[in-house]
């Protein structure tokens, strides 16, 4: 598919989505192979008013471990961390996570921009970022920040996104490495796993 060096050297996958992207995130995570070689951090916009059990359900349906990110959790490869509702999620230089309840960014807490930037500050170009469907422009600054730091950026094709605002905002702000349909995103993740696992 692509032999981009940056993909095989990546340390983490970050995924951001909002309205219209939850089912896709669910499918992406539940299809991950047991030995997925990187930690995955997922930021989705969700209300704090309704208790969400997406992590629990996903954990039971996935081959990888899925959990709500806890303060100072150390990143482990093959584990999937969801930003809890009502907190921003940051990454420390020692590769542990920090929760943060400062002001919402673009009405969002967690904010995709905040997590994407924080992860890029630690791993620089060794980041793979994926931005999916959503109804606001959160995520565009974050993925372009990763792009500016030479990380690898993937945006869902607005044509296949349920709500196109978020991927469109990203594409208009910087040029993503790949713009993929849903099916292509699945095979990207598959390839990613085998590329890195073969290497090691």
């Amino acid at each position, binding site marked *: 598919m692509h032999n981009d060096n940056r993909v095989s050297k990546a340390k983490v996958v970050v995924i951001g989505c909002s309205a219209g992207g939850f089912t896709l995130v669910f499918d992406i995570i539940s299809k991950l192979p047991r030995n997925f070689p990187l930690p995955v951090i997922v930021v989705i916009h969700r209300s704090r008013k309704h208790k969400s059990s997406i992590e629990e359900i996903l954990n039971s349906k996935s081959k990888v471990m899925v959990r709500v990110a*806890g*303060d*100072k959790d150390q990143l482990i490869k093959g584990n999937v961390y969801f930003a*809890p509702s009502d*907190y921003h999620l*940051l*990454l*420390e*230089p020692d590769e542990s996570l*920090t*929760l*943060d*309840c*400062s*002001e919402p960014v673009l009405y969002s807490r967690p904010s995709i921009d*905040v997590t994407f*930037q*924080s992860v*890029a*500050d*630690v791993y620089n170009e060794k980041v793979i970022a994926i931005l999916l469907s959503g109804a606001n422009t959160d995520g565009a*600054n974050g993925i*372009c*920040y990763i*792009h*500016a*730091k030479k990380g690898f950026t993937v945006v869902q094709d607005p044509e296949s996104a349920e709500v196109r605002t978020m991927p469109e905002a990203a594409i*208009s*702000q*910087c*040029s993503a490495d790949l713009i993929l349909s849903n099916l292509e995103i699945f095979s990207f993740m598959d390839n990613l796993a085998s590329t890195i696992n073969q290497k090691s």
Partner: protein
Amino acid sequence: MKDSVVDVISFEQVEEIIEWVNKIHGFDFSGYSRASLKRRITRIMQLQQLSMYELKSLLVNNPAFFEEFLIEVTVNVTEMFRDPTFFKGVREKVLPYLSSFQRIKVWNAGCSTGEELYSFAILLDQENLYNRSFLYGTDINRNVLNTAKKGIYNLKLMKQYSENYMLTGAAGSLSDYYVAKYDAATIVNNLRKNILFSVHNLVSDGVFNEFQLISCRNVMIYFDVELQNKVINLFYESLCPLGFLCLGSKESLRNAELAKKFRVIDRVENIYQKIG
């Protein structure tokens, strides 16, 4: 297409700022989360369009700027009855026990603008415990404490707070505890008589009283693990035997040594009782 501005300040430069702030102003941020500090300092530099050189110069030469810096780098976001299930847990599992104490002293550490401490005061009042209670709110930040002392909040926010309050399952109405005038809600005097707000730095200050309940939520997330343990130890030293420590759903006693000194009262809301 515009280029994203990356690395307004590097992690190495964050270390430099930490050192300067400690040397010049005596505030030790070395136990703070670097990710959070980097983000907050970047924010100040972007808002005020400062270079690293200008930031350092202001920190050295301008005491008023340091006050501003302190407010910006520490997060001061809070609400009344934030996370209603937490207050429900306190009301149902802690207050019945607290009522057996003659005097109930409460410490809200890192109280910011005071909303959380007033929430505790209301909770105690609902159970007829307020008159034998005394509540202390502390923060490192003088400015937020001034807001806390005034007890005047934006009336618009009270709608959200009332919703939170109802979800705690407490009786009565939040509007019994404030007076609305124009767009301001002022906490009633009766609720303020047993409350004291004062400066205390969790990093450098020690035990100042003995408490039956200590609440500290969404504060230790900004600390590294080592400082978190040090602060929990300070809380342990500050609690009376069988006193309660409330950390909220995101902060727990993960250090095994410290965990031995407490028993778990609420596993989700991380409420503990001192036993050791």
